[in-house]
């Protein structure tokens, strides 16, 4: 036989449980647009009646109402892992594509201001010099258009160099951010652990921590896995522990500090553990990986192309120019030279050796008598414009080499952009899967709210009913015939 008042406590448990459920639904609705928020569900549990057989146990009893067993985060750890891996792949590929897009912008082809049209203008000037070798105007045009080519090469090389420096600064910022985020993850891990240990709910902190872990994966391609049942997550990077429980290990950016150093065979940019100074290893995914690929490969390679164009141009033109003769019959010197202090022709060191119009060796034959108005050597130099190296691309003239490079960077950019777009779609799909599991649906919450509200009203009704029953019992009983 149960107590007369047990009905009240049953109704009260219903009121309290549904208040709690209402709070949770309200929290879900409030966070409907919060990034990284995982919807929560109130787990209700009925309180069983006395069921252990004993001396005074009395037959079958009803339950004792309801209690809140817990609040569940509706996220799916596997979907979260999928999102992390996709996000880091996308960060890597989109970073690589972005570098190529930048380089392609520097290439600036096809356009009327790019290197190919500057070269074209220079060859035009040489060709015009063939028809008018005695014209000072034609000679001035050769010098000016050649200076245009030299300037274009220098500008492009400068732009590539500053792109390297920017990217280097970006790498350093990324590593700093990764360290800060890793420290955050460790800190949150610590808090979560202590809250969970004391039996509390750390769902919101877990949301924050998971967001930070995603950011860490996006930056470095790190992988995460739950450490134990206490809600703590460990983050590993290439086998090393970036975050272990409440402790984060610092990363350091190491390697050459200038593009010249990288190109001279210096140490590649890489990550190392700050505590031990050991190499982290090649990163898989993450934007730092893309940044390193740019710093160690794509950008220095691009600079090498400009240097190669400058070298080809200078050696080919000089070879022809030194075989020609000036208008006064004297042999021609070098047409292109290098900046004082440099030894090789590079995009930045190449200069015009010829400054006076009369230093241009337009004439083919030696001798003062017939070289004054001869333009056959200028014609020979003009022929460099269509020099295809006789089938050997490495021996081709600057124009062919440049065209080959343009198609190369064009197709690499196209492929990289395509890959990045495809990964973006895959990433969007997995984010959407994750959102589908963890996102708040307002309709659902409203429906839940409705049900909870009705249940609350019902519980209140039960309370009233019990109250009335007791009123009858206490106040009306024994008054018959009075």
């Amino acid at each position, binding site marked *: 036989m149960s107590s007369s008042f047990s009905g009240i406590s049953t109704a009260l448990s219903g009121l309290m449980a549904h208040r709690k459920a209402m709070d949770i639904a309200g929290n879900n609705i409030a966070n409907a647009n919060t990034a990284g928020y995982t919807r929560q569900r109130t787990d209700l549990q009925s309180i069983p009646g006395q069921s252990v057989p004993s001396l005074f146990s009395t037959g079958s009893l009803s339950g004792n109402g309801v209690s809140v067993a817990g609040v569940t985060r509706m996220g799916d750890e596997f979907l979260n892992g999928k999102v992390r891996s996709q996000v880091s792949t996308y960060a890597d590929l989109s970073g690589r594509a972005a570098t190529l897009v930048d380089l392609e912008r520097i290439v600036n082809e096809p356009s009327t201001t790019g290197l190919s049209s500057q070269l074209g203008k220079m060859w035009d000037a040489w060709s015009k010099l063939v028809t008018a070798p005695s014209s000072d105007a034609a000679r001035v045009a050769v010098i000016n258009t050649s200076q245009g080519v030299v300037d274009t090469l220098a500008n492009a090389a400068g732009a590539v160099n500053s792109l390297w420096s920017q990217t280097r600064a970006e790498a350093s910022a990324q590593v700093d951010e990764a360290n800060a985020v890793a420290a955050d993850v460790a800190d949150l891990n610590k808090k979560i652990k202590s809250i969970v240990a004391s039996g509390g709910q750390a769902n919101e902190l877990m949301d924050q921590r998971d967001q930070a872990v995603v950011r860490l994966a996006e930056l470095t391609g790190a992988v995460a896995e739950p450490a134990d049942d206490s809600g703590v997550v460990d983050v590993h990077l290439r086998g090393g522990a970036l975050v272990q429980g409440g402790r984060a290990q610092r990363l350091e950016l190491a390697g050459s500090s200038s593009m010249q150093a990288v190109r001279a065979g210096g140490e590649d940019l890489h990550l190392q553990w700050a505590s031990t100074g050991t190499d982290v290893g090649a990163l898989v995914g993450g934007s730092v990986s893309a940044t390193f690929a740019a710093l160690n490969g794509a950008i220095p390679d691009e600079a090498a192309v400009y240097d190669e164009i400058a070298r080809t141009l200078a050696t080919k033109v000089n070879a022809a120019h030194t075989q020609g003769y000036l208008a006064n019959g004297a042999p021609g010197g070098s047409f292109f030279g290098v900046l004082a202090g440099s030894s090789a022709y590079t995009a930045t060191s190449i200069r015009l050796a010829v400054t006076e119009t009369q230093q241009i060796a337009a004439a083919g034959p030696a001798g003062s008598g017939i070289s004054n108005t*001869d333009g056959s050597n200028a014609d020979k130099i003009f022929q460099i414009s269509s020099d295809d190296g006789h089938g050997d691309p490495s021996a081709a003239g600057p124009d062919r080499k440049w065209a080959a490079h343009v198609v*190369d960077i064009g197709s690499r950019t196209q492929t990289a952009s395509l890959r990045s777009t495809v990964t973006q779609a895959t990433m969007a799909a997995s984010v*959407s899967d994750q959102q589908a599991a963890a996102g708040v649906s307002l309709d659902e919450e409203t429906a839940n709210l409705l049900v909870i509200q009705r249940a609350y009203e019902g519980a209140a009704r039960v309370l009233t009913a019990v109250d009335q029953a007791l009123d009858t019992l206490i106040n009306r009983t024994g008054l018959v015939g009075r």
Partner: protein
Amino acid sequence: MTRVTHRTMQESTLANLQRNLTSMSSLQERLSTGKNINRASDDPTGTVSVLQLRQDLRAAEQYSRNADDGLAWLTTIDTALQTTSAQLRKAQDLTLSALNQGAQSEDSRAAIALELRGIKDSVLGLANTKYLDRSVFAGTTGMDSAYALNDTAAPSGHVYAQTSAAVAAPDSKDGQVLRRIDAATQVRVDIDGRKAFGDDQEMSGPDDFAKMSVFTLLDRVAGLVQTSGEPDLTSINAAYGALKTRMTAVGAALSDVGTNMNRLSSAQDVAEDRKVALSSALSGVEDTDLTETIVQMQMQEVAYKAALGATAKVLQPSLMDFLR
């Protein structure tokens, strides 16, 4: 079944709108620039075609300009040689009439000699004809004139401006004025003055008619004709023969000029045709097909509007609208 929430719907809608807008902007770029290829990655192989076609087009323009310039040279030379030929014919006639001894008095011979000297001056002027301030018969020298009278130092007489370098190697193109009409061909657009007018470089004496320039020859004939006593008919006859040879040489030079003019004008036609062909090929590769792009643009716009309409409908309703 995938759970759908307002948030996922909003995100996918935004992503779709973004995709639509991206397509619109790429079409817009093509329309506003008029180019299909705005950066190398738009069409890498097309880009290389563009670069190659532009280079070929520049070369074709240059070849066409070269042919124009060459034709101007050859026309100048042609005129000069035609006139020279007419003048020499007249000199021949005069010499012939001087040979006709009975009909000539000393005075009339003096008149013939005067006329011959006049012809010599005019031929010398023609031999020094210039085009754009360059003597067309002087090859690649920078001299003011192809022939100058050298009466101070040996060798005396009318000395050709060009040194003997070109003579040394018969196959050598040294000293020739050449114009490139395609990647492999150059056409000569001048005439070596010595070929038409001869020079006095190897003249052994006043009667070495065969190795004498036409100017010296005409002077010499005038000298032979204008004499107070009996004219030296044998010498005049020999000089007459030399004049005839010179006429033939001028004729040969004229036919050279004609041949080269033909080559140049056909090269010019080829270059012009090639320019048109290359321009249209270039336009085919890099220019936007306006009709097609505008139609695509319209379709894209319809799609975008539909997406916007759907977004407005999809994000509006909520269960809350139906609960009191």
